[in-house]
């Protein structure tokens, strides 16, 4: 195992309160020293002056698609995409086929992960059997099998009583319930945010009230049950206000936001329009909202109301998107662009650098209490941590989906120029990915 010495980068580690320019030594599979002018004979030196060195990113919300939807992605391809995006830990959402709602399915998933995954994958179990929203899955089995959270993501748990019972169980098991907050009856056949663009384009709208009313209901139930409610992919200004209020009252409520919702608005569906309108790559659930919503999400991230940036990486096969907007599959493939979109927002002054890095590292770890299971995760703790990312914050590059490791080329950012590039990723103390080598 090579000893690695990263020279002269700006080391930012919110978990340990570190922000300084210095060297980082990785030896024997662990980060051993962080300090000035480290000397270590035999070490492979990498000059990272001008770059930022952070703990490797942790994603609370990824869709690996396998088992069942291998045409959209596999554990192998999507974890390779995660690695290149700077993520060495991803939490896999359970909308696969079969869905992990019992011990045996989780076990076979873990086996698949052990065989083919490029990064650490933590499974999220289903809330309901088959994700059908009718009966609870065997939640204690799922907890024992290693699930770090439960979710029916893709669908909300629509029935109030069932949700309440799920939260009671989750509280007892000390598992977070990551909820896709939505109201199916309000959303009917909506395919994009209800508003100016949907009404012009003649597309059925998904009103903000659908998400907001569901969040309100779920927060009330979290209060009743004392459970940890984690709100997946918040998208509206009012949603964020509810989260802030719940936290202010001491409830165990956390929230995540996707890089797509921080970067894009419903205008992406209209594009440079009108001839360019109806870009199915901009179809996502929850939908891209208004600029006012986006600004509220940025503010909430900057002041800590939102705990984590979670990609909601959703790869799709070409034919799932090359069709009419009404029938296009929702979701954006974004593991390989997430870091760049976040750092582009930082370079534009819309996002605070430290808040952004925290939301990619210490924030997600604290949200799902991963530090107890995996010591040193999301941090650069000498003697404990093993993963880091070197990122060039000023490097401009153009998104080219043909170079994606992910099977999903579905992003509205193709051809767009972003600022901020992952240069190196160290995982388990080894250089697992290097942008320079990838080009060679």
């Amino acid at each position, binding site marked *: 195992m090579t000893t690695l010495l990263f020279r002269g980068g700006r080391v930012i580690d919110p978990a340990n309160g570190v922000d300084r320019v210095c060297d980082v030594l990785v030896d024997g599979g662990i980060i051993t020293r962080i300090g000035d002018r480290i000397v270590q004979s035999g070490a492979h030196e990498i000059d990272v002056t001008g770059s930022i060195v952070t703990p490797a990113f942790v994603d609370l919300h990824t869709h690996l698609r396998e088992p069942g939807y291998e045409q959209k992605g596999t554990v192998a391809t999507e974890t390779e995409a995660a690695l290149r995006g700077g993520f060495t830990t991803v939490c896999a959402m359970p909308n696969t086929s079969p869905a992990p709602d019992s011990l045996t399915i989780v076990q076979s998933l873990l086996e698949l992960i052990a065989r083919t995954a490029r990064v650490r994958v933590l499974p999220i179990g289903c809330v309901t059997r088959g994700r059908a929203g009718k009966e609870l899955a065997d939640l204690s089995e799922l907890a024992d099998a290693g699930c770090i959270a439960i979710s029916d993501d893709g669908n909300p748990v629509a029935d109030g009583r069932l949700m309440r019972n799920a939260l009671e169980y989750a509280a007892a098991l000390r598992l977070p319930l990551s909820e896709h907050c939505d109201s199916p009856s309000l959303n009917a056949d909506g395919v994009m945010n209800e508003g100016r663009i949907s009404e012009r384009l*003649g597309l059925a709208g998904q009103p903000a009230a659908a998400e907001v009313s569901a969040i309100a209901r779920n927060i009330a139930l979290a209060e009743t049950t004392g459970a940890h409610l984690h709100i997946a992919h918040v998208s509206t200004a009012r949603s964020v206000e509810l989260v802030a209020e719940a936290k202010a009252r001491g409830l165990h409520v956390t929230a995540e936001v996707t890089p797509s919702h921080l970067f894009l608005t419903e205008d992406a569906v209209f594009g440079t329009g009108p001839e360019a309108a109806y870009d199915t790559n901009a179809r996502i659930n929850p939908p891209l909202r208004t600029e006012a919503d986006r600004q509220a999400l940025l503010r909430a991230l900057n002041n800590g109301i939102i705990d984590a940036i979670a990609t909601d990486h959703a790869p799709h096969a070409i*034919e799932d998107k090359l069709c009419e*907007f009404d029938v296009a599959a929702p979701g954006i493939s974004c593991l390989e662009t997430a870091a760049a979109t976040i750092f582009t927002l930082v370079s534009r002054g819309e996002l605070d650098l430290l808040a952004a890095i925290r939301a990619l590292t210490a924030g997600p770890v604290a949200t799902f209490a991963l530090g107890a299971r995996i010591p040193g995760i999301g941090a650069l703790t000498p003697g404990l941590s093993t993963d880091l990312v070197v990122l060039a914050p000023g490097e401009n590059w153009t998104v080219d989906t043909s170079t994606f490791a992910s099977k999903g080329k579905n992003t509205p950012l193709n051809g767009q120029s972003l600022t901020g590039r992952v240069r190196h990723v160290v995982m388990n103390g080894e250089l697992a990915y290097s942008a320079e080598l990838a080009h060679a």
Partner: protein
Amino acid sequence: MLDVSNPEAIANEPGTRWRTKDLLDTDQLTPEEIDLVMSTADAMHDVRSRPVGKVATLRGATVITLFYEQSTRTRASFEVAAKSLGADVVNLTASGSSIEKGESLIDTVRTLEAIGADVVVMRHPNSGAPYLAARHTAASIINGGDGTHAHPTQALLDLFTMRRHIGPLEGKRVVIVGDILHSRVARSNIWTLMAAGASVTLCGPATLVPRTLAGKTERGTCDVTTNLEEALEGADVIMTLRIQKERQHFGFIPSLRDYIRGYQVNARRLAIANPGALVMHPGPMNEGIEISPDIAHGLGSVIEEQVTNGVAVRMAILYLITTARAQ
């Protein structure tokens, strides 16, 4: 006169260029292009009124109608228009074809292009479908109606009809009454009327009138109201839209009776508008519901004329699009 073999003369003769391969909606047209459609439609209207109502200008061109939704009037109108210009016409419906077997829209359109279609006239239940088709074929796509989004040829024939009766639309008041939310006719009309400098008022039940469609452009305005009597004051044109019974089923309106009470265009309401106000309807009508029978066939009604003008306007569009393809 322009000598067609003299290249210099051709270069000097003024003509507006038709810019786009397709006609997807009226919001892509400049006011000059709209005027070009109007003046070309004048010439086509003249052709249609002659003893021999056709010309051979588009001889050799192939026009294929691809309708994923049922339609009598629009399809027949396009067919007559194409044939009046000497083009060959093929009509395709979704049922009983490979489309029913699950062939994708893009594959279907590419197949038609390979067969030799110069122009495909499309009607589709999903908003945006013609945009997808247009991006994936070199054939010209004319949108014959997509979901609740657009029906550009209807809006253009509506404008043509209005102009023939009340002249330029600058400063005129047009009221569109009915289920605006689900109406592609209303949307396309908003763009043409605003480009023409009219002031548009959208009127209907609160659940069926999207507030965000209100707005202003450099030339025209659009506002929104639920009060029909107020909307009709000073109106020069009243355009009624069909109300579908299904809307009651989904809770948009309490009942047709309630709708008639608030929004039926009848003699009493017509009297509020300007004298000589035009009464229009894209058809087919539910007489007795959104419009009373006496008004539908009364003095101010130009509803049948809309249909006749539809052929002339569609001839104009086919002519402009097909001649633009040669360049």
